[in-house]
């Protein structure tokens, strides 16, 4: 099962605070463990929402809204993509993570829709095309 592991933003991350060197080293070690365990697929930190934008879709309209966005605790500061056997395994790994922020913080764990979920929703032709695209992407990566 694949999971998106979301590091939620804090006032400090939104203000562009530099990471604490001790935390940075601890996170490096944690990432090493994730890779050794074969769990980590991707990871990145995101710039504060002040450098981001939103596009609102309403009927035919597309409105661009500049960051920063106000609901700090619901924003994303970074993420991983992990391949785990179960939600329980993902939770256990998150518990081992160093606190990514100076103060209190949240990490959210969300399972991916898998191909078999989609197989029930789309036509066999659409499914074949999807598999083609995924193969093309995998080849490029």
């Amino acid at each position, binding site marked *: 099962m694949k999971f998106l592991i979301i590091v939620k933003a804090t006032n400090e991350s939104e203000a562009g605070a530099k990471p604490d060197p001790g935390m940075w080293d601890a996170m490096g070690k944690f990432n090493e463990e994730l890779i050794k365990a074969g769990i980590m697929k*991707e990871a990145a930190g995101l710039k504060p929402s002040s450098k981001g934008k939103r596009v609102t879709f309403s009927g035919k309209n597309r409105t*661009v809204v500049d960051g920063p966005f106000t609901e700090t605790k619901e924003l994303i500061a970074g993420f991983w993509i992990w391949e785990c056997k179960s939600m329980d395994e993902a939770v256990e790994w998150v518990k081992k993570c160093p606190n990514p922020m100076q103060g209190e913080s949240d990490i959210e764990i969300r399972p991916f829709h898998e191909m078999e979920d989609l197989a029930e929703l789309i036509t066999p032709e*659409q499914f074949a095309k999807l598999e083609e695209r995924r193969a093309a992407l995998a080849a490029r990566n």
Partner: protein
Amino acid sequence: MKFMVIVKATKESEAGQMPSTELLTAMGNYNEELVKAGIMRDGAGLHPSSKGARVRFSGKNRSVIDGPFSETKELIAGYWIWECKSLAEAIEWVKKCPNPMEGESDIEIRQFFEMEDFGEAMTPELREQEQRLLAEAAKGKK
């Protein structure tokens, strides 16, 4: 520049309402364009937050909170990772996207931190570690 393009959740997506065949078709065509343009790196749809969990970090404590989470409009329903020349290019591509939800919806565009953003805090040793880890993670990718 790399971007995370975030499809924000709606009441419908959180209720587990799945997209129509029509929307899936439009989104499939759009994804074809992204792949052809060499922009798309990754993408996925997520199960509603009722199937998710949160871990809260406070000092030495780690507490697990089960979903669903209440602030629906701030949750994530899906995402892409794109490589674009600029934020402006990413915005233009988002504008071409079919509305991913039945009603009104938002897509958020967030830029990745690159190595140079960390300045001197990113020592040569840490940089070397980061590059090695990314290379190893890429090997593990399917």
